[in-house]
């Protein structure tokens, strides 16, 4: 029994409720509160590393009668990613959000976003998964629209509609599964499917989940909302959405259900690999033509999610490790890049690449950290992005998928290409006269950028440590497949 587990959800939710009352007394309390709570979550998630898989019975009702939280290697990995990125993004927000009004609401929504993601990652119950999915999704619609300008509202509305369609698919799938099996507990559903065998209704549910969670993960062809929604949000929120939200709500939920509840069949595996491969190529090509920095980063997120899904769907031990490692790495460098884009926008008031240049003279810290991010996402050794892409390519070659392996390498070159272009447009060349007086961003924002850049380097160099403590336990959870049932009922 692990008594920290409910706190991952109760702390952020409680903080959001309390924050709005206390903000009436002192307006700055939101930031302070969010900082402390996210620090607690980082400590909790680090203390959770290396623990044996455990379940937590909500209200002391045993499964399947009540709701259980399940902590195993995979949820530990996601919790760690979510809380570390959220903590750094909060530090960045403390100064960045000074330009916005309604800050207590921003921090409250931020906490609800984190609480919702933690719930999705921890729960072992289908309907509970849906409830927390909705908390995180609705918080993200509001945060995308936070600027309240025309562009933001339009992007948020598009996101709301498409994501609402995805939620409907997911709910329909859950309803059908419930009427088939008579239970909502994931492990119990897996057990029932295991004894009754897979029929056409279960296959239909699987396809509904692939559509629904695929849309939340923005896999091509379910991606069109992301290039609007992620750039429209304030930069720290873009970092959260691209960095962790699409992974917790989309990729995590999908692989948890496919591997641990339904069991990965070769057909599902090839469907996911096709979707992943398409995402890599299509979004990679679309990213090249973008002039808006954040929009380009958003397309590149879709492309990188493609790598993650291809690695995971491969289903071999090496492929899964590569996918999971790339998931963590992408969270780090994409958060870094979106925060850098926020820092650049903070100083120059523009996101258009064609209007910028020579920023390295005026913003040395941002330039250095963003460069680390660009090199990492392009897969330059010894940064973390190189290792995870290398592992995925090797795993593809080992499994005999030569075409997909060469596609993965080519898209990697494509990534280098468009980030070279960004690098040249942003940091080198002449400083336009309009930008002659810009300044480097304030200290807390610089700290967040530098820490993320160091993490990009450290995760690459310390891969052996990371793989033995975090990645391998998570890989084993997925490899064991529907043995998940024993984890939940055997304890």
């Amino acid at each position, binding site marked *: *029994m692990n008594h920290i587990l409910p706190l991952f959800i109760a702390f952020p939710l409680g903080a959001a409720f309390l924050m*709005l009352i206390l903000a*009436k007394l002192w307006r700055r309390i939101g930031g302070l509160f969010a900082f402390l709570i996210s620090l607690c979550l980082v400590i909790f998630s680090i203390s959770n590393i290396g623990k044996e898989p455990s379940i937590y019975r909500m209200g002391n009702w045993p499964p399947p009668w*009540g709701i259980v939280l399940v902590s195993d290697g995979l949820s530990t990995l996601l919790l760690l990613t979510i809380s570390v990125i959220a903590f750094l993004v909060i530090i960045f927000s403390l100064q960045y959000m000074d330009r916005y009004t309604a800050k207590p609401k921003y921090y409250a929504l931020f906490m609800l976003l984190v609480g919702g993601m933690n719930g999705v990652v921890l729960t072992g119950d289908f309907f509970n998964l849906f409830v927390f999915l909705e908390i995180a999704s609705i918080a993200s619609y509001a945060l995308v629209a*936070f600027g309240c300008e025309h562009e933001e509202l339009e992007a948020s509305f598009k996101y709301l509609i498409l994501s609402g369609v995805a939620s409907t698919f997911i709910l329909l799938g859950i309803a059908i599964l419930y009427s088939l099996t008579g239970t909502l507990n994931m492990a119990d559903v897996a057990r029932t499917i295991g004894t009754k065998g897979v029929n056409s*209704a279960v296959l239909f549910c699987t396809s509904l989940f692939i559509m629904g969670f695929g849309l939340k993960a923005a896999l091509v062809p379910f991606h069109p909302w992301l290039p609007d929604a992620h750039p429209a949000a304030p930069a720290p929120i873009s970092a959260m959405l691209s960095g962790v939200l699409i992974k917790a709500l989309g990729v995590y939920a999908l692989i948890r259900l496919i591997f641990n509840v339904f069991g990965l069949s070769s057909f599902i595996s090839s469907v996911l690999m096709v979707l992943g491969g398409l995402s890599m190529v299509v979004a990679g090509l679309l990213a090249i033509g973008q002039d808006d920095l954040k929009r380009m980063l958003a397309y590149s997120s879709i492309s990188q999610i493609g790598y993650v899904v291809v690695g995971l769907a491969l289903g071999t031990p090496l492929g899964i490790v590569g996918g999971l490692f790339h998931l963590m790495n992408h969270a780090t460098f994409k958060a870094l890049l979106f925060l850098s884009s926020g820092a650049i926008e903070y100083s120059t008031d523009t996101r258009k690449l064609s209007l910028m240049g020579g920023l390295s003279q005026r913003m040395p810290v941002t330039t250095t950290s963003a460069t680390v991010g660009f090199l990492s996402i392009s897969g330059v050794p010894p940064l973390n992005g190189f290792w995870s892409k290398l592992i995925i390519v090797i795993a593809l070659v080992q499994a005999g998928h030569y075409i997909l392996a060469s596609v993965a390498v080519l898209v990697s070159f494509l990534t280098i290409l468009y980030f070279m272009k960004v690098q040249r447009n942003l940091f080198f060349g002449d400083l336009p006269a309009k930008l002659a007086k810009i300044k480097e961003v304030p200290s807390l924002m610089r700290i967040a950028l530098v820490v993320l850049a160091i993490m990009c380097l450290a995760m690459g160099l310390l891969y052996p440590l990371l793989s033995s403590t975090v990645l391998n336990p998570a890989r084993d959870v997925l490899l064991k497949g529907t043995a998940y049932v024993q984890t939940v009922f055997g304890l």
Partner: protein
Amino acid sequence: MRAIISLFLISVLAWGIATALNEIPFGAAKTKVGEYYIGRGKEQTGASNIVTSVVVNYRGFDTLGEVTVLFVAAIGLGAVLATRRKKEKRDVEPASLVLYTGCRLLFPLILLFGAYIFIHGHLTPGGGFQGGAVVASAFVLVYLGCRGRRISETASKTVESLGGLVFIVVGLVGLAVGGGYFLSNYLPKGELNSLFSAGIIPIIYIAIGFKVGSELAGVIDHLVEESE
């Protein structure tokens, strides 16, 4: 062309749903968990309303999530509409005397009825969400009948947050005294069918009633302001 593609996709979906429905054993015995709740609900939770025992006790954690979903939606709406405020107030035509008097008479009665529903959530049909919705409908009536009257935003926001906070704190107390389980029912279950029974269930439902009532009233307030 678009119509053909849409038609094709919809027919694939319809075919899938039809196949899935075909596999579901309709009219068979109740579901596994449903059977359990009906058989043991009263004895295990002390609530004579089985729906309530499932909503607040067996699956109370879901309810915490649902309450939060409503809360997120309310502050999200507040954040998006907040900048559109501060327009000069237009004069609204006052309601007729009949409507005005009727609203003033009905307002306390509806509030009382809403409170009755959420206080008796563990005994009779209904509960926090339903009672809260009834309470909010009293405020809709005020907006219709006594135009120009507004609820205090500070008060409604505070009640809303306090309602959520009570739910979480009641749950967290379970960590300390309820054998270490979040949202476990650690209070005495009392005598079945009496007002003071079912442990923490009525406390949570009253908190939800206040929260949902003030939340929906706040949402209506935002939307009324927006449309004026």
